[in-house]
């Protein structure tokens, strides 16, 4: 807070009323979300990578049948759905910060964010659709 830097004078009585700046706590909640989702993602993502890259032959055993077997279990469906949403929002907010920090023009900032939000909605939306409509007998 900048309370110590505030001028020692007080506004004159009867001076025209200035509306308080519109404040939003969005950035606070975004900051908190990064930390909370980060803790959950640590377990979900490292668990996912341990299973997919190291256990039972690692990446070489992954194929359609393997995915079908996993998603027959609601536990792994929920795992993947939670991981998808948290990773999409965590990564999306991280890139939003990066764009805010490094873009110099309002135009490039706006269009990079349009691109970012489109890709987040596309990936999280497509992933959710696939998880809910997966058909092991599609072939």
């Amino acid at each position, binding site marked *: 807070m900048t309370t110590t830097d505030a001028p020692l004078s007080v506004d004159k009585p009867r001076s025209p009323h200035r509306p308080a700046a519109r404040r939003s706590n969005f950035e606070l909640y975004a900051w908190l979300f990064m930390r909370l989702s980060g803790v959950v*993602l640590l377990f979900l993502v490292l668990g996912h990578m341990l299973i997919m890259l190291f256990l039972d032959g690692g*990446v070489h055993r992954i194929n359609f049948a393997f995915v079908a077997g996993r998603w027959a279990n609601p536990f792994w469906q929920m795992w993947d759905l939670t991981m998808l949403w948290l990773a999409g929002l965590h*990564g999306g907010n*991280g890139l939003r910060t990066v764009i805010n920090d490094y873009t110099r023009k309002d135009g490039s900032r706006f269009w990079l964010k349009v691109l970012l939000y489109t890709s987040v909605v596309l990936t999280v939306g497509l*992933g959710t659709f696939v998880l809910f409509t997966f058909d092991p007998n*599609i072939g």
Partner: protein
Amino acid sequence: MASTTASAAEAPQREGNPRAKGSLYRGDLGMWSWVAHRITGVLTFFFLFVHVLDTALVRVSPEAYDTVIETYKSPVMILFELGLLAAVLFHAFNGIRVMLVDFWSNGPKYQKPMLWTVLVIWLVLIVPAAISMLMRAVTEFGGQ
């Protein structure tokens, strides 16, 4: 996010000697951990995008999915997966450090020893992981 972390870490040092020595975080090891956190995060995000698209092929046909997932098994792609794991591991454990700096009263004081701890944990995990993945890449490649 990470940018607020940098200012949070330098705050206590500023209290003691205002503007005497400037920031102890900027330009120092702590800043590079912040840079590395950004780079590993952005790289992981780009992989997430690709990975959701390739996994979505299970909705197209088993053949389409199997064909694309087969590329993940080539030795070159296994090197890429090792790089991804290295990035994710650093991001995960440095993220814990960021949270300790933010929420633990002694966090800013111990940010540097905590960074060394992160790097030690990272090494302890990535070395056996690299050995395991590279050995499998070589044996599977030789078997084909």
